[in-house]
């Protein structure tokens, strides 16, 4: 289901992170497929493959990060059942589950439908459990083969509301999405399909980070620059071609420094990594003429690991936004942009929200 946009929705190639989200049932439509399902519990996957959703934390209504949602929701669910489940790890939850057995068994079958509907907005881990509820007789045995609801579920299937809510919370540890990482000494090529990589705090905090535009002379007079936002709230441009070689300008101790060696480069001083909030690296033709773009932007960590962004954006006259860097909780998240921008660097700043810069003209910031 990953990478398959719903047929109805327009694809959003600009929102790369959406690609790793699973398809969510629309809140209004979700309850509808629910009732028919109990008849055939073992094959509960209609068009949506919702049976598999057990392992996929895709909350229907939320838009925040999945790993967090899971825990959040299980705690929210605990409100209905005033149990110590919220903070407790798995073992203690199992202890409490037998209590539920004795609890509401009588009310179970009639109560089944409403709670299931009420529980709809909860995590998809619950998706499997409404199956038990609505089809109490048939459910337990196929359920038992289900890895997620192994022990407690078959026993508890008759009593409707509280138990199934807790069972998944107990069985499944909070799922943490893994982010793409850069192995020590490794190499990652960022593409439109896989646009991001996250450096560790060590990679983001030791030595320097070097960003080079490796472009042959055949392409043209390619220069490099970067827009930056610092933790103190200031923003600006570092771009040797404009005569601004450091960020902040005229700094005794710059966070970012421009230099020309074999290729033009920017160097981030990682001793000051906590002073940097974000960075947007762009390349452009110094003469401003149209280039047939090629080459690579290469980011090298202190340990020699590399992140590369191909610069093949075709014929284009203006600047090209190549790579954004965000410092998130001490970790650098690098993202390939590879986006041709019409205009000058001022338009790049506008496109990426570097709005705390004033301009003398399209290419010259007032710093």
């Amino acid at each position: 289901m990953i990478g398959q946009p719903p047929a109805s929705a327009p694809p959003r190639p600009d929102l790369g992170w959406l690609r790793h989200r699973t398809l969510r049932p629309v809140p209004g439509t979700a309850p509808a497929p629910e009732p028919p399902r109990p008849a055939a519990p073992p094959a509960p996957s209609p068009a949506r493959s919702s049976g598999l959703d057990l392992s996929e934390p895709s909350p229907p209504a939320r838009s925040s990060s999945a790993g967090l949602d899971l825990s959040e929701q299980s705690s929210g669910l605990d409100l209905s059942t005033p149990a110590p489940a919220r903070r407790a790890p798995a073992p203690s939850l199992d202890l409490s589950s037998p209590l539920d057995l004795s609890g509401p068994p009588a009310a179970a079958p009639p109560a089944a439908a409403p709670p299931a509907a009420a529980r709809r907005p909860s995590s998809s881990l619950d998706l499997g459990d409404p199956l038990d509820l609505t089809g109490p007789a048939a459910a337990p045995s196929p359920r038992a083969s289900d890895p997620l609801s192994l022990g407690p579920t078959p026993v508890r299937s008759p009593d409707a509301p509280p138990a199934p809510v807790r069972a998944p919370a107990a069985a499944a540890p909070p799922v943490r999405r893994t982010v793409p990482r850069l192995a020590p000494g490794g190499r990652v090529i960022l593409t439109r399909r896989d646009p991001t990589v996250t450096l560790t705090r060590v990679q983001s905090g030791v030595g320097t980070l070097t960003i080079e535009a490796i472009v042959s002379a055949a392409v043209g007079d390619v220069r490099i620059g970067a827009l930056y936002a610092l933790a103190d709230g200031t923003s600006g441009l570092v771009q040797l071609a404009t005569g601004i070689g450091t960020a902040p300008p005229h700094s005794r101790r710059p966070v970012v420094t421009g230099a020309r060696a074999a290729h033009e480069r920017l160097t981030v001083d990682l001793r000051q990594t906590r002073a940097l909030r974000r960075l947007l690296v762009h390349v452009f033709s110094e003469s401003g003429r149209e280039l047939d773009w090629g080459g690579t932007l290469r980011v090298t960590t202190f340990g020699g690991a590399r992140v590369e962004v191909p610069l093949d954006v075709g014929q284009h006259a203006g600047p090209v936004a190549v790579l954004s860097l965000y410092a998130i909780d001490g970790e650098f998240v690098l993202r390939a942009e590879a986006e041709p921008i019409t205009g000058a660097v001022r338009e790049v700043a506008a496109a990426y929200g570097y709005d705390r810069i004033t301009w003398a003209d399209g290419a010259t910031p007032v710093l």
Partner: protein
Amino acid sequence: MAAMSRGANVALTREIPGLTRIVVGVSWNAGAERVLQDNLVLATVLCDADSKALSPEHVVFFNQLTSPEESVAQVETALAGDDEQVEIDLSGVPAEVNRLVVVLYLNDGTAQRRTLGQLRELTVVVREAAGSRELVRSENLASVLSGETALVLGEVYRHQRDWKFRVLGAGYTSGIAGIAADYGLPL
């Protein structure tokens, strides 16, 4: 209290029963060398029995202020006259961690190159966390340094059922990269 020389060790928890939280501090005198001063970094590496870092998350320094289980924490504002400090909850250190290696390095930034040999004075000190009472202090480690850019100051390590502290003062001309190679620190 005599200053500990290189290689000397002391049995912290045996000498002081009930000691659970300590602070390892470092103090230096860089004179008027601002660049040197600005780029000095104290880091603590949580190592297994083979003296290798457990993971990239088991390096505590200014950009990663605690180890995952929070037994080792960089002190953001050093107290008691130290320049940098790290606080260690000995009872909370995971069983698989055998030694905590405390290093000082010069970040190889964009500035002109400096060396630890330019330090006039450099000592490492172990304190009781509560009250910052000084337990042991090393001799001046700077006196024999010249071209080094990183230095293993000392290590807090398990010995039988005790925690001990040893002064090392082992310099590296290859900087933090050299220390990273020796201690399996993934850069």
